[in-house]
């Protein structure tokens, strides 16, 4: 069987929070550094995303669709891109249209909800999938978690959502003697297959490509492919996963990384290596065995665990406050869009990574913050304000279950109203057909002459008109109803 490279890129950019002092709590509800966000996304787009995506488009055209690639884009980043770099959506759309590109699902917020709250995890993954469907017309079938976080329980949840496969870090401590170049299945739910990331071959490109002190520098496409080709017989799937920003940003364009990429398909073909999207890989390869992962793994740092996000007390405190069950319930129950958006953005993993006190040997990127303490302070101030807003939405005495049932009730009433509205318009139409040639609108100005149809109508409408005001306030769709009915009510009064 041919060796298969499963190439996958993550597209995600942190949403930078602004400097938020404790005395802003309760007065200022806007948390973002717009300037920094716009600057970063534009810089990335110009330096990395645009040239990289353009190159991939060319590669697909040149190689007759032999080049396959997969992307995952977090919902929060999509919002940023829509706002500041809409051109990129166009590029992605063209890539999607080639049929050589697969989009994966991931949590909308790029957050840690898989570890924090299952309800939220499922809800936001569905939202993300919906968004991908809207923008690119694909229904994601394969899942990847934020920072490739995975353990058995997460695997089971993902399987329950109906995904066929999931991307997982091929960390040494979970694999042991096993090779990352096979497909495995989730230990708790065999419906889910796992594609493992080969961190050595991935980091050769994403991390070391431009490192002149590396013994293999400069890396050429044939050399890299020869490493793939020399893998033992039977080890057929090579998961190459990295951030898209690695192409052009972490490894500058001047390092000719895109030329490296461009050279891959042709050379690969000569060596008998093919490219495939995750779904294709899963269709052709069956899992060889279950893979047990008790503690969460991720693709961060050398430890490949969650210590860069939840390693110290500050991070855990912030995490626990963010995913407090009571709070999550309220947010999920509320339909407030601003709350929802702030919630997404506050969940993003970078907020936690900025607070890390680990020394990973590469220096930590901390966004606008000076230090881990600065990051923690700022985040907690914002979180404090956000949580207060969530609590203020509903009185403390109301339980989440109660809230939910109230909301369902409202939703049901809305439906009921819709049904009734339809009924009314149907009846009206029938009324018209039945005869009365007079127009309905002028009736109000001249009340005297036409009495008969007026009365009939008033009766027909009375039932919904009475109920409506009591139920309607929260339901925008229902708003039109009372306006229509008002004149009808007036008429009998004048009589």
């Amino acid at each position: 069987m041919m060796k298969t490279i499963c190439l996958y890129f993550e597209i995600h950019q942190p949403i930078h929070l602004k400097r938020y002092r404790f005395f802003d709590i309760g007065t200022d509800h806007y948390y973002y550094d717009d300037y920094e966000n716009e600057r970063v996304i534009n810089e990335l787009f110009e330096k990395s995303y645009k040239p990289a995506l353009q190159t991939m488009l060319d590669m697909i055209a040149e190689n007759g669709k032999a080049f396959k690639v997969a992307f995952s884009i977090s919902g929060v980043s999509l919002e940023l891109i829509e706002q500041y770099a809409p051109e990129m959506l166009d590029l992605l759309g063209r890539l999607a249209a080639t049929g050589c590109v697969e989009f994966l699902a991931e949590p909308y917020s790029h957050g840690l909800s898989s570890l924090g709250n299952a309800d939220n995890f499922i809800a936001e993954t569905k939202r993300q999938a919906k968004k991908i469907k809207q923008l690119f017309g694909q229904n994601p079938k394969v899942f990847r978690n934020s920072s490739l976080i995975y353990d058995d329980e997460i695997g089971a949840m993902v399987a329950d959502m109906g995904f066929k496969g999931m991307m997982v870090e091929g960390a040494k401590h979970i694999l042991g003697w096993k090779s990352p170049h096979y497909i495995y299945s989730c230990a708790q739910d065999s419906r889910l297959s796992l594609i493992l990331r080969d961190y050595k071959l991935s980091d050769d490109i994403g991390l070391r490509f431009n490192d002149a002190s590396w013994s293999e520098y400069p890396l050429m496409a044939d050399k890299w492919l020869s490493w793939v080709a020399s893998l033992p017989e039977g080890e057929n799937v090579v998961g190459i996963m990295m951030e898209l920003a690695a192409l052009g940003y972490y490894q500058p364009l001047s390092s000719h990384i895109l030329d490296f990429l461009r050279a891959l398909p042709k050379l690969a073909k000569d060596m008998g290596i093919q490219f495939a999207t995750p779904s294709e890989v899963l269709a052709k390869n069956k899992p060889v065995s279950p893979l047990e992962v008790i503690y969460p793994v991720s693709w961060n740092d050398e430890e490949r665990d969650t210590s860069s996000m939840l390693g110290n007390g500050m991070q855990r405190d912030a995490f626990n406050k963010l995913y407090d069950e009571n709070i999550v319930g309220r947010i999920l129950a509320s339909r407030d869009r601003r709350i929802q958006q702030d919630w997404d953005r506050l969940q993003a993993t970078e907020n936690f990574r900025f607070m890390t006190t680990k020394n990973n040997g590469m220096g930590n990127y901390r966004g606008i913050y000076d230090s881990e303490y600065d990051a923690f302070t700022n985040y907690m101030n914002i979180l404090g304000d956000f949580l207060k807003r969530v609590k203020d939405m509903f009185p403390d005495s109301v339980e989440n279950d109660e809230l939910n049932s109230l909301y369902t009730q409202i939703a049901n009433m809305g439906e009921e109203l819709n049904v009734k509205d339809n009924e009314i318009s149907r009846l009206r139409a029938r009324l018209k057909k039945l005869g009365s040639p007079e127009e309905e609108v002028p009736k109000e100005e001249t009340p005297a002459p036409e009495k008969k149809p007026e009365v009939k109508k008033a009766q027909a409408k009375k039932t919904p008109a009475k109920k409506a005001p009591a139920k309607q306030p929260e339901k925008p769709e229902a708003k039109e109803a009372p306006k229509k009915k008002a004149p009808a009510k007036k008429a009998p009064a004048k009589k």
Partner: protein
Amino acid sequence: MFGWEFPPKIYGGLAVASYGITKGLSLQGDVETTFCMPKPTGQEEGFLKIVNMSQVPVVWRDVWYDNIKDRFIGHTAEDYYRFRDHLYADFNYLQGLDDMGCIGFAGGYPGNLHEEINNFSIIAGVLARSEQFDLIHAHDWLTYPAGVHAKMVSGKPLCIHVHATDFDRSRGKVNPTVYSIEKNGMDHADCIMCVSELTRQTVINQYHQDPRKCVAMHNAVYPLDEEIRNIVPNKKKGEKVVTYLGRITMQKGPEYFLEAAKRVLERSRNIRFCFAGSGDMMNAMIELAASYGIADRCHFPGFQRGKQVYECYKNSDVFVMPSVSEPFGIAPLEAMQCGCPSIISKQSGCGEILSNVIKVDYWDIDAMADAIYSICQYDALHDYLAEEGIKEVDRITWEKVGLRIRECYNQLIGRGWFDNGEYLNAVKNIK
């Protein structure tokens, strides 16, 4: 070694640093230190030899051994006679000579400080002629003239230790006399040890010294005594205490602390602010606090000594050092030893070796207020800083500083690293 202060009599940070350095050196086993100071108390620890500069003769007096042998504090009567054999000029014109031909010192920092500095240097000439030594080490500008004099006489290398410069003390408006003394000392020195990189840069840029002879020699702290570790904090529940500890003077930036306090108190009333220390700006601070209407939350307990200092740290939830310019600043290290999280200004030298503290610009009162508020509000941050702070500060020891100083000494007296077995053993033991 020339110094002005030494424990147990402590006026400021200089005494603590002098003690740490000499102790660190003494642990290496083959360093013999003679510490010359104006007025010892006689209760100094015995690991080094003390020379009492008030009892070194500068003028010949015929005195009987039996009459004077019990009068000495620090050195002995035998030393006195040896010093008397090495008088080098006639100083009979000097005021305040006593019956033994010595010049008295008031100790501390009296009004006639410049006169005392001059006398100190005269006496150093006698010492330099009578004592055998390899190297001269002078602490702080008061002793630089003495160090320079001793170098002139003996030709031995001079190492000066910059604990502070006048630029730190005066926010840039230097006293020309002090500056000239400092500059002269640095010009003659073979090695300038600065307590931080910040000070080193001041020395290089403001005193125009050759960067090659300036080294940053950060201070350290001694582990706490049993007695101090056993102090049980006496904290009220639900109330937080934020402490400023140091002289209340321009250099230390107390007004920024007060401004930050005002901002914090607008949001939260259950925090108390403690200004421990005294100084020229104390009354102004009290008035300012009153005018902001926060006098009920600001406390001015005055100068703290000895154990009181540690009680103060132990009872605090946050320690703040908003210094405008701090050459080193040992206080945050002491606070961290007591498990009290610290906020320091970025203009403090100790920030260069500390990572488990919050650093803000001294003028950024918003950031300072924010940091104070979050340590009080978020226990996770407080606990993390407290625990990691203790671990970090326990690794900063005078023994290590002593080894680094020794390295400089070896270079100065033309000895390499590896020609001394005893020294290498000491390195092994300490590490």
